[in-house]
């Protein structure tokens, strides 16, 4: 079965600005922050699979 890919992640909630901007990467810290949504997305898939049985 194909695994699929997470293409990219926009971290935090990005609203409250008049524009489509994003965070300036925070170096190593920022990379670590990005892991949280990646793991959450993976968890959602695992939960879906378990539900299916």
């Amino acid at each position: 079965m194909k695994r699929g890919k997470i293409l990219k992640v926009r971290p935090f909630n990005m609203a409250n600005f008049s524009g489509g901007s994003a965070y300036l990467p925070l170096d190593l810290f920022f990379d670590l922050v990005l892991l949280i949504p990646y793991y959450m997305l993976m968890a959602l898939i695992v939960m879906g699979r378990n539900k299916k049985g």
Partner: protein
Amino acid sequence: MVNKTRREWFGGLVFREKPGFVGYVDDVMADRLKIVKDENVILPKNLFSTPMDAHFALTTRCNLFCEGCYNTKPDDNFSDIPLEKAKRVIDNLTNLNLFSVSFGGGEPTLHPNLFEIARYTREKNILPNITTNGRTVSPENAGSFDVFGNVHLSLHALKDIPYIEKAAALIVKFAKIKPGLNLLLTTETLPELENIFKWAKKNKFSKILCLRYKQTEKNKGISHLQIDDSTEDVYKQINALRKRYKMKVLVDCSMFQDIAKYGNLSHDQMYKVDFNGCQGANAYIAIDVNGFFKPCSFWKETMGDAESLTQDFWINDVKLNAFRNYRDNEGCGSCGYLDLCCGGCRLENLTCGLPVSK
């Protein structure tokens, strides 16, 4: 908590309020996440199926009238959007599966039904956010701000600082939300940038959004606030302060080209964190006090009633597509950042001097 998904041309989007993020996944993963696909809709490449976020101006009233405001002047005719109209707009944004609505104005806290509209928005599973100057925040109403996902306080002039500090403390205490700071970069604030970062850190702001001063019909001629932001120095300074004070920093989409040119960020780094230029009429729309939508808060021309906006109109409207397809200069075609930049700020006085290479 607001948690949503939807299909897009590349696959799908996953929106989560806490921890806050938007994940972009391919078709295979969208299927595995069981994100429903509407086989009747053909989604064009590079266009979101509907906006993700709407900037909703609830009122034209203001209690400050900052010099150089792009939106409100003291001699305007003031109006609030009626409560029922605001609810009908929110109903339609729910149909369109938007993720968030960012309330602004004027000064949105002057709208008599602000919190009711915000609660209604959350009930409809859309995340309400707000940008305010903070002057009306009091111990009596600060707790009501807990309905919002993000609260941002606007710093347009140095004299605002004591008021913002007080409002931020009240919102932290009563609503348990750490506000963000909307910092307008002007000839007054830029020389004080380090002090502002230091102050924001001390007062535990969650992030700083650096906004470019833009001229519209409302502030035409007020040019002494405009900084020379076409130089590398501005971006070096922001970057250095971001590191020194370990603050999360956002930048205005109109600054994308200069960040690409001077910011030492690779195309891949920018892509990975969804760092873009103009996303007007794509990732977001603006809605004015009459309930009419337009591609961007700074844009003058409205393009229809937000309570009757459909996906078909969104995808096919000629004016929306003309806005999307705008390119700032002839060099755009060969620029390695075009897919992220989207052609530059549509406000005609901004140009960038690109192309740059990846």
